[in-house]
């Protein structure tokens, strides 16, 4: 899709240029995943495989309902099942559809060294442009959610595209289309926030006083949001980060070390050049050869 949508890029990896900025009127989109309505049927997983033509290799039973056991280059979304006991000892079966969160401030894009390999469209979707990907794995280090996976076959990074190809022509993502309970919704981000508000109110009335929306401010919000019954403890849901943000290590590397280093290297070269034109080369003088000869002759005379 890359070339057809290049004017829709608002962020481009590894570029010092301003991305196209004329188109500013597009609605921000979001996918809302309501964990309280999910029944764990995995229709979303099947739909994702079907639309994107993905077929992961047959795995092994790992003693859990998670199947396959993890995201991979050909598994872009995955139901994660958690059995947790609340304070009263009541068992809860929490199911979360894992996948790219499409951060407003994407760590993968910040870390990526390949120009145009990761882009963000004006509607908020973060997409990997495979032809530009060099397979370095920096996006894996940049991501606060442990999402991208590098293929061993073609050395390119893969993750959920939020069905950017479908969304571009006015369709909803495949997982949304397939969900039988309405646990996955898609639309303008503001609409999804409103809808989430209604759901949270309903959950609170049913005793989930900590119900809330997961739209983490640490990454300036996400374009995939969750309604959680326990929004105070996101990590209960198969380790969903409580306060995700781009790691300070990644920020230091990309925002401080990178520009300062290029400056430092340039200054070092300049320092050498100016030393050359001020002090000049250090050349052996005639008297050095004479002194050396005298020393050698003195030694020969002594022996």
């Amino acid at each position: 899709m890359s070339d057809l949508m290049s004017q829709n890029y608002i962020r481009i990896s590894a570029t010092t240029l301003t991305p196209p900025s004329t188109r500013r009127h597009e609605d921000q989109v979001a996918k809302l995943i309501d964990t309280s309505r999910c029944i764990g049927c995995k229709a979303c997983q099947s739909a994702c495989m079907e639309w994107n033509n993905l077929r992961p290799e047959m795995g092994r039973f790992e003693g859990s309902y998670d199947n396959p056991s993890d995201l991979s280059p050909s598994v872009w979304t995955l139901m994660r099942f958690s059995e947790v006991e609340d304070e009263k000892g009541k068992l809860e079966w929490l199911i979360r559809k894992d996948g790219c969160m499409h951060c407003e401030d994407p760590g993968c894009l910040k870390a990526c060294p390949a120009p145009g390999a990761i882009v963000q469209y004006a509607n908020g979707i973060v997409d990997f442009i495979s032809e530009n990907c060099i397979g370095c794995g920096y996006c894996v280090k940049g991501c606060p959610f442990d999402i991208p996976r590098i293929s061993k076959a073609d050395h390119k990074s893969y993750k959920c595209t939020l069905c950017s190809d479908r969304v571009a022509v006015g369709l909803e993502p495949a997982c949304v289309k397939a969900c039988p309970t309405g646990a996955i919704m898609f639309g303008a981000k503001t609409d999804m926030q409103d809808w989430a508000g209604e759901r949270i109110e309903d959950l609170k009335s049913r005793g989930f006083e900590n119900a809330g929306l997961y739209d983490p401010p640490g990454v300036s919000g996400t374009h995939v949001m969750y309604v959680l019954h326990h929004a105070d403890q996101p990590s209960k849901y198969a380790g969903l980060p409580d306060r995700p943000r781009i790691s300070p290590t990644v920020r230091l590397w990309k925002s401080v070390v990178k520009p300062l280093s290029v400056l430092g290297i340039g200054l070092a070269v300049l320092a050498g050049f100016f030393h050359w034109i001020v002090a000049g080369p250090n050349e052996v003088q005639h008297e050095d050869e004479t002194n050396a000869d005298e020393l050698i002759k003195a030694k020969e005379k002594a022996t």
Partner: protein
Amino acid sequence: MTRPRGTLIRHSTVTRINHWITALCFVLLVLSGLSMFHPMLFFLSQLFGDGQWTRAAHPWIGTVLFISYVGLVVQSWRENLWTRDDFAWMMAIDRVIANKEEGVPEVGRFNAGQKFVFWSMTLLVPVLFSTGLVIWEVYMGSVTSIPTQRMAVLIHSLAAIAAILVWITHVYAAIWIRGSVRAMTQGYVTPGWAWRHHRKWFRRLVQAGSRGPTVETRHETR
């Protein structure tokens, strides 16, 4: 190699081959590494084919450099040991930089600046190699945790920048001190060069009647 009569051997053939393998690897690593470091330098990846080739080649070149550098350490660590004289030389560094070397303490085979380059690289090369292994996505991608890899990539870039700065110093010094490049290409220096820059080394060679590079070296003809 034909060398003028009366000249001294500064670096043996083995050392020179070893040095230039290391140097070639280092230049290739700087070019490929910088292309993945700053967007403005991504064009350097074209020298290796494209970004994928650059990413694939960089760790292998690094492995060759590491092995090659170990060879240099084995050959020259002893003559790079820090001595009290090196402090005195460092104190007079301003005179050295200004090309006014009268009164600067005499130096042996290597001066304090050369020793600094040697020990900096001896520290940085293993740091770069080990952190590079951690972030070698193809083989080591899932061996360590993501926070470890984040730290490794940060240390790798800091160490790389330090190594590049040391390397710029090294290359400039070779250009600045005339006769040094020939010492590492053809391997010889004139007695006057040795007198001017490494007088203590020169005195020892004359005393021992050796043509260099060390007093122990035995030559067929003299």
